[in-house]
């Protein structure tokens, strides 16, 4: 299936991509400790059937499914944005230290016994602060463009990782330390309408900006001169993309802790099928990311009696898949 001339998705591909998260959501509704058949699900949608089923579906599973769809789509889109920004296939939403900053904020919120909203707020703030520090660290007369931004991001990331360790060290070992550790391992357990009310708007806004700029993302790998000669202000474009991707990542971490691999694996999976043009790559990554994380979360809460932290599962699934992908692309692309 070749992408159409303009790089947009064909109608068939678009339908298939939209069907993916819907199918994943349907599966997530039905699978779990209380198994629900599709017939029961549709009965509950009509307002019929048992109350237990209705409560399970709408009060527990629906916010959780929405959260995993949102976070999956958001992290995949942020991954696409960062990979385009750095013209580097290994760039992830944490390259600028966003996730480390947000994790520190969340840990701090738990330590200070803030409520869920407070934790979300500190996580968002610290995520943004980490990016600002990274940007400042890379700016200056002797800076060498994007490579110094990446180096600065690594430094700021490890700085905030150290701060997270410090918070853990000072936390109460009986209650707070497990809470922090468990939160940072990533889980959709905190999903509720309140979490979504506060955390969804930044993710949606960031995704909307990236969506609107999706064709312009193609200009990011160009050199400054080339972009300028194409009539594009590269600095403004970069700033908009960084702001959008930061907003998404920080808000995702604030809702469900660190969920690794989605921002790396999903864009690569989509590149293989839909090419490098962001007109098709971004929509595809949004859909596949949403479906992927929803399925992983469903597995996380149904495989065993106790819930498995989601980043363990994404890593267990992600690492082998990524190696497989890498071997395939190396073979197909003639090892470029």
């Amino acid at each position, binding site marked *: 299936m070749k992408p159409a001339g303009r790089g947009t998705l064909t109608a068939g591909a678009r339908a298939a991509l939209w069907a993916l998260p819907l199918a994943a959501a349907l599966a997530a509704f039905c699978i779990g400790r209380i198994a629900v058949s599709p017939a029961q699900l549709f009965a509950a949608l009509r307002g019929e059937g048992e109350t237990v089923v209705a409560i399970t579906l709408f009060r527990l599973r629906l916010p959780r499914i929405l959260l995993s769809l949102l976070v999956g789509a958001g992290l995949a889109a942020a991954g696409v944005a960062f990979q385009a920004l750095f013209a580097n296939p290994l760039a992830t939403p944490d390259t600028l230290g966003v996730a480390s900053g947000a994790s520190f904020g969340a840990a701090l919120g738990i330590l200070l016994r803030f409520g869920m909203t407070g934790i979300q707020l500190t996580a968002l703030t610290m995520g943004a602060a980490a990016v600002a520090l990274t940007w400042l660290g890379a700016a200056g007369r002797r800076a060498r463009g994007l490579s110094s931004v990446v180096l600065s991001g690594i430094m700021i990331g490890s700085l905030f990782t150290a701060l997270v360790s410090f918070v853990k060290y000072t936390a109460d070992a009986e209650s707070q330390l497990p809470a922090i550790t468990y939160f940072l391992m990533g889980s959709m357990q905190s999903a509720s309408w309140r979490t979504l009310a506060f955390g969804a708007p930044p993710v949606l806004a960031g995704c909307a900006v990236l969506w609107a700029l999706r064709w312009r993302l193609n200009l990011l790998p160009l050199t400054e001169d080339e972009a300028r000669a*194409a009539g594009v202000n590269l600095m403004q474009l970069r700033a908009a993309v960084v702001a959008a991707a930061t907003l998404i990542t920080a808000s995702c971490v604030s809702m469900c802790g660190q969920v690794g691999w989605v921002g790396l694996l999903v864009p690569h999976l989509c590149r293989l099928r839909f090419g*490098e043009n962001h007109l098709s790559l971004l929509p595809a990554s949004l859909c596949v990311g949403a479906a992927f994380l929803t399925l992983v979360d469903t597995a996380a809460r149904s495989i065993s009696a106790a819930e498995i932290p989601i980043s363990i599962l994404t890593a267990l699934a992600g690492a082998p898949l990524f190696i497989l992908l890498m071997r395939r692309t190396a073979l197909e692309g003639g090892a470029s």
Partner: protein
Amino acid sequence: MILRVENAAFAYRGQKPLFQNVSFSVASGEVLAVLGPNGAGKTTLLRAMTGMLPLAEGRTTLDGRDIRTMSARALWQRIAYVPQARTAAAPFTVLESVLLGRSGRIPLFGAPAAADVAAAEATLDSLGIGPLRDKRCRELSGGEMQMVLIARALAADPAVLILDEPESNLDFRNQLLVLDTVSRLAREGVACIFNTHYPDHALRRADRALLLHHGEAAVGPAAEIVTEAAIARAFGVRAAVGGIETAETTVPGVVALSVLDPSKAPSEAPDARVLAAVAVILTDAADAAAVNAVLHAHRGQIRGRMGLPVREYGLSVIHLTADGTRAELGALTDALSRLPGVRVKAARMPLSPDDPEA
């Protein structure tokens, strides 16, 4: 359309000027070659004249309007820039790459429309690389990639095409293909400026040449700029400039003979003044007013003048004695030679026996 660079100077922060007093102009359908050895500042000149780097002095105008007063969008719809082909090309297909060149015409939150795709495809076809349409750029050869970069620049339908060493790193055949493309675009009315280290390419392909050396620029008709003496001075190479006879015609060419010993090379400070005799030949005496205006603008260099009509040939000749730096004299003769119906011959004085220009 005419692009003029007036008294341009550029210096990197805290360093002495890389070049100064650079003046030249290029009109629709003309090819100007910017010639000079490595490090002479050719690429910097191209970047500074288009505003990618700030000029320390001087300005660039497009049809009389300072480009710094134009919006980036308006400017880059008229000027296109082709960078040196990089090996690590963007991962897109050829068509996707060429579409990027139309960014200035696509709304901020938009995507290329059918008309943009049609324009990009037409550009690919006009350059003869239509069959590469769906190939990935990283699978292309160096020559193909250079053509794609030219296509990307042309997709915006520019009036001025600026190419940074379009033929370096290419093999014999691809050099010819790229240079032929430049010549053809000029015939179609595009003003082309290209950088090159090859005196041969400047001599054969360009209408006019700009030789950049030691921060000074000599500008003029290519045959007057690309001389054995100039090559010796700028490149430190003894070369033969002459014609090569083919079955159909005689083509001008440059053959490098040997590397000159730098200790014996005539060294000349960039601000050294030279004396020159200039003959300005007018086919129509009515053009004298325009010549006088140019002479007035360059009055600092004019030491003496004498005009006399040669009635039996229907010509007027103005003899000038001028002195100034090479760049100043170059600017003077260039300005004169651009007047319609005017031909200019200049010779440096005095010529000693060991002078390379003798």
